[in-house]
């Protein structure tokens, strides 16, 4: 009786472990995917302002490659790096848009 009970408890515990691990992995995947989507949007905005960076593009591609390999931790890290670079490039473009001047005339 106790043996059966122990086995049942063990099985229930193992199942719970596997299910929660799967849910955590799924949560990681979703987070990485969202992060990549935001980075893609930011880079598109930077390109529109004529100042998309090649380093942002490289980080984005690394993120997408990692995601395809199910390495969600790496994908998230690269996507966040891409977001950071994209934000800096957007700030650079916005602050300078008004400041370009004809260097030979002024």
């Amino acid at each position, binding site marked *: 009786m106790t043996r059966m009970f122990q086995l049942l408890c063990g099985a229930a515990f193992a199942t719970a472990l596997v299910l929660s691990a799967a849910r955590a992995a799924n949560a990681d995947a979703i987070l990485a995917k969202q992060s990549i989507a935001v980075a893609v949007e930011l880079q598109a905005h930077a390109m529109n*302002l*004529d100042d998309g960076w*090649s380093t942002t593009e490289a980080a984005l591609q690394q993120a997408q490659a990692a995601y395809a390999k199910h390495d969600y931790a790496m994908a998230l890290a690269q996507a966040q790096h891409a977001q950071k670079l994209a934000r800096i*490039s957007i700030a650079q473009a916005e602050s300078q848009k008004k400041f*370009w001047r*004809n260097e*030979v005339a002024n």
Partner: protein
Amino acid sequence: MRVLFVVLGMLLIAPLVQAAPPSVAVEPAADLKAFRTNFRSQFPDLLLNGYVNGPYNFSKSERTQWNQIMEFPPYEFALQEGKELFETKFPDGKSYASCFPNGGIGIAQTYPKFDAISSKVATLGIALNECRDAHGMQPLNLTKGPPAAIETYMVHTSRGKPIDVTIPDDPRALAAYEAGKEYFYSRRGQLNFSCASCHVQAAGKRLRGDVLAPALGIAAIFPIYRSKWGDMGTLVRRFIGCNKKVNAQPVKADSARYRNLAYFLTYMSNGLPMAAPGARP
């Protein structure tokens, strides 16, 4: 959630930070004069026509090596290949000559042109692709390979002719010119350089192992055989390369940004003799 708001906020602000329309009239001729004056006052001993030799005016060793490589110009093979391709008939019996005035001979110095029908600037490469399109053929690469060879041949037939880019009194053409000018002077990329940073402010100076060519005359020598490429390349190929060098993400070769930049840059060399195809390190 916060990220979503930040992104939305940026997208909302975006239209407000577009470049303000120029409050002064667009005057290409005045720009050209100022451009020339800037360089000529910087390098008083350099003849105007000498500008087409770019970096070779500023480095004896580069000029010596150039003279050596020009004993047998490295673009010779592309020139021969380009001539053959230029004269090859299309499947429908016509050839490139039918798309250009004077059969395409001695006319390269008038490009880029503003195409009033498409409202876009057409470089020589784009004109070649439009010719192919009109005869039911696929467009070709704008940066290298066979089309660069055809351009090499066509510019060779214009050697010595003064560059003669026209900017008609059409608001669209003037806007394209102005867009090119803005691109030239705007900083970009992670290194935050503009074209002017190197080719106006640092013209004649060294950048790592290279000597920077002044922007005046720089468009007179394309397509070039670049020793680094081991190959011919068009002006657009170099635009893309320069973008990458400042860690800016390049755009498509036929994009309006590069067309307008070519329009501005070539106009700034108006009057200088075509010295294309060129050979550079």
